[in-house]
Every structure is written in structure tokens, then in C-alpha cells.
């Protein structure tokens, strides 16, 4: 049965990634993996099997030198607001959209591993644990595990949680200071914090004073596969028309470059 929900009440946490600033260094991926207890595979070079919540895609404009251009798409979970595809198909209610934070949860102890959500997700943001998490013994890796994030077991799906434990940490801090509301910047994801180019901005899209809200309204802002209507909460910014065009599938002549939009 479909529940009727309006837009997120309270907070709606989201992210804006400036692709003009992104250098494709991959620090966000590393920071994410370290923060969220991502296990390593014995052979990490096998990318069909390795797990990452934040994946970096490289795109090119397909032209020859000297006109070749490259851009990178860091891709976390989009935390779709509307008809969240993974949530609507999950038969176990192991994933749901929290309409007070806008975060799409994933409960590993509830997941039955059917991978229907992986098929439904248009962004390939979900990965399946074919094996129990592996943390090489004797190399000290297990000592870096965070107690704030539960490790995943074999047979469940996992995905980016917008570092939900950091929201809890920030809330706990706020309660200690006898506040109920969080200030901007108190809760940011690990990738946001780690990005050396500061390409990622994180905040509450429902709060007009937050920087993300302003950035998301930029004429250069777009979302991946926006026309599917899933209302992703991860926005990208690029001043390059060819990069924005790659954000969705357009029929010939359908995509409007910004310059022509302005002129028209």
C-alpha cells in the first residue's frame, strides 16, 4: 500500500557536488570507506565484487585532443524523496525514507538479500554482500572499525546512509548543550569533510539559510536522471553543457544548453 507523504517535514538533508571543483582524486571514496566500516575484498582490484558507497565515475566529452575534456561524478546514494525506487520495492521494509530527515535508511538486520532494491535503483547506489565482511587480521585494520556503524553480514544489501551516525553524533552534542536544533555544518558527511577541493556541500535543503539550498537553485545545478521524478537530494553543479547533458538521457535536440536558454 502506498503511503501518502508530502515533501519532507523538518529537515531534508542533501548534498551539492560542484563538478567544476572535483579533481577526481577519490578522497571521498576513501573517507567514506574508512568512516563506514567498508570491508575489503582479498582482491580489491576486482571491481565487480568490491563494495563502495561512494563511486567515482569518469566521463569525457568524447572529443580528440586538444578538445578532449574530462569530468568526474562522485556518486553517493541519491536519497530520493519521491517514490524512492528502492523503498517502494523492498518486500521486507528494510529500507525506508525518513520524512523527518530525508534520509533513506538501510537496516541490515532486516534485509533479506533479495536484491530487488538493487534492480530498482536507477543510480546503482546499492551493493550486495556476497561474503561476510573481511578485515585482514594482524594488519591492524580491525582496530580502525568504527563502533558507530554496524558491520554488514553476508547476504544483505548496503548503501550510503549520508553518514547517518554523524547526524546522531551531532544531535547528541546538541542535547549536551541543551539545544534541539542543529547549526549548519554540525552534521556533514565524511566525504564532505574529506574533499580537498571542497567540491561537496552538505546541509538541510529545507533551510533557506543553508548554503546547499542556495547552490541547488543555481542555473547550473542538475540531478542525475532528474526526469524519472524520483527527486534525488544530491545535486551536481557544472558550468559545462556537455557534463550537464550527461546527467540524463536526452533525445536529439531536447537538451537546452544554458547559453541558448538565456538567449531564448
Amino acid at each position, binding site marked *: 500500500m502506498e503511503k501518502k507523504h508530502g515533501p519532507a517535514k523538518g529537515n531534508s538533508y542533501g548534498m551539492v557536488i560542484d563538478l567544476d571543483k572535483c579533481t577526481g582524486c577519490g578522497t571521498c571514496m576513501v573517507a567514506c570507506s574508512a568512516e563506514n566500516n567498508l570491508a575489503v575484498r582479498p582482491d580489491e582490484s576486482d571491481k565487480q565484487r568490491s563494495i563502495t558507497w561512494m563511486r567515482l565515475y569518469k566521463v569525457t566529452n568524447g572529443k580528440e585532443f586538444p578538445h578532449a575534456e574530462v569530468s568526474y561524478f562522485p556518486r553517493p546514494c541519491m536519497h530520493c524523496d519521491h517514490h524512492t525506487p528502492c523503498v517502494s520495492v523492498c518486500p521486507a521494509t528494510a529500507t525506508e525514507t*525518513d520524512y523527518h530527515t530525508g534520509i533513506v535508511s538501510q537496516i541490515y*538486520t532486516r534485509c533479506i538479500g533479495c536484491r530487488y532494491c538493487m534492480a530498482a535503483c536507477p543510480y546503482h547506489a546499492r551493493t550486495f554482500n556476497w561474503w561476510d565482511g573481511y578485515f585482514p587480521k594482524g594488519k591492524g585494520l580491525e582496530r580502525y572499525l568504527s563502533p558507530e556503524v*554496524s558491520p554488514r553480514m553476508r547476504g544483505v544489501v548496503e548503501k550510503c*546512509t549520508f553518514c547517518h551516525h554523524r547526524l*546522531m553524533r551531532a*544531535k*547528541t*552534542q546538541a*542535547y*549536551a548543550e541543551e539545544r534541539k536544533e542543529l547549526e549548519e555544518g554540525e552534521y556533514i558527511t565524511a566525504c564532505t569533510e574529506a574533499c580537498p577541493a571542497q567540491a561537496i556541500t552538505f546541509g538541510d535543503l529545507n533551510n533557506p539559510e543553508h548554503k546547499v539550498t542556495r547552490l541547488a537553485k543555481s542555473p547550473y545545478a542538475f540531478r542525475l536522471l532528474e526526469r524519472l521524478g524520483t527527486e534525488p537530494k544530491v545535486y551536481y553543479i557544472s558550468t559545462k553543457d556537455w557534463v550537464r547533458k550527461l546527467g540524463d538521457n536526452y533525445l536529439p535536440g531536447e537538451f537546452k544548453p544554458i547559453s541558448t536558454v538565456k538567449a531564448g
Partner: protein
Amino acid sequence: MEKPIKPSLRAWLEGGGFFVAGFIGALVVGWVIFPMVLYSKQPQPMNFNHALHLNPEKVDGIQGDTETERCLYCHGFYDDGTFKGIPRLAACTECHDDPESPLGKTLEEKAFMEEYVAKNKEIQWLSYYKQPDCVYFSHIAHVKNGKLDCRVCHGDHGKTSVIPDYEANRLTGYSRNIWGKRISGLKTNTWDRMKMDDCAECHSQKGHEENNACFVCHK
């Protein structure tokens, strides 16, 4: 002359007798023997008298007007709001600082002084209330923000003079306090169990349905 019992009735009585005996036997196995097999018992490394320590008339130095405030004197919060849990030895030695001069007269304290304070060794307490790894719980959200008393979940633990043995479920490894002491799983007090439904029940009763979202308590 007595009327002979009909063979068919006799069979019924005999069968009924065996049924009742078997039924009682099964109940004993299920309600008495099974919990004994299921739960392991481990004594704590030493006794701790909560009732004595929480009594400001007997213990000089415990601060706080209400019971919860006195609990928080030892089981308090760090500056970042995280819960300290079971105090470390340093909290004990704030008062019990000199191994040569115990503050009370009990043999237990004397042993504690010799075994732990003099050797500066941490006490390996067993936690009754440790939740599974997948559970997130913020004490400060409940105690400071929600203004709940400790006893709502922890019952009269603070009034005991002898701490109970730690019992763990041999199958899951979790403390018995999570399921509750009653094997039936029924509860009469809010502190009888610490399962997900108990958290959700209280959230709903207090009008905080939004806190029943999965990601509030799961991580």
C-alpha cells in the same frame, strides 16, 4: 458391591492421567529447565551496593537532589554528550583514593581497595544492558532531552544492595535483561524488557511516532 469401572472409562482415566503428567512435565521443562539451560550465569567481579552509594545520608560526596541526578553523578555524560556507561576506576578513586584507609567497614570494600585501587586495575564489569551491535541508543536524548528517569528503563537497579549475577543467552550472547527476566516475555513494568517493541511502545505513548523510524535506533 462396588460397581466395576467400565474398561473404556478406565482407559480414558489412565490416558488422562498420563496426559496431565506429561503436560505438567512439559511445562516444567519449558518454563524452568529451558531457561536454566538457555542462560549462563556469571558473577560480577565484585559486589557493588547501589543503595548505599545513592544514599546521601550515608555517603558523603554523592551530589544531586533526585535519584536520576545521583545516578548521573557516576554514570554521567562526556562533554560531547555520549554516555559514560559503567564508571572506570578513576571515578571510584575520586572518593576511595587511599587504599590504606577504607571509607566503610565492609570486607568487600577492603578487598576492592587491595585488589583494584592499590594495583590501579580496572574492574571488568559485565554490562547487563548492552544492546546488539545494530542498535543505536542515545542516553542523553532520553535523560536530558526527554526528561526520563533512569528507572523507567533500568528499574530499581539503583536500590539494590547486591548486584545480580550477569546472565547471558547462550545462543545469542546477549544479556538476559534485554529479553527480560520472565521467559514468557510478558511485562508489567516499563523496565521489565528492553526489546525493540518496548522502545517503540514508549515512543508511541509519548507521542513521538517519528522516533519509530528505523534509522533513529538502528545504525
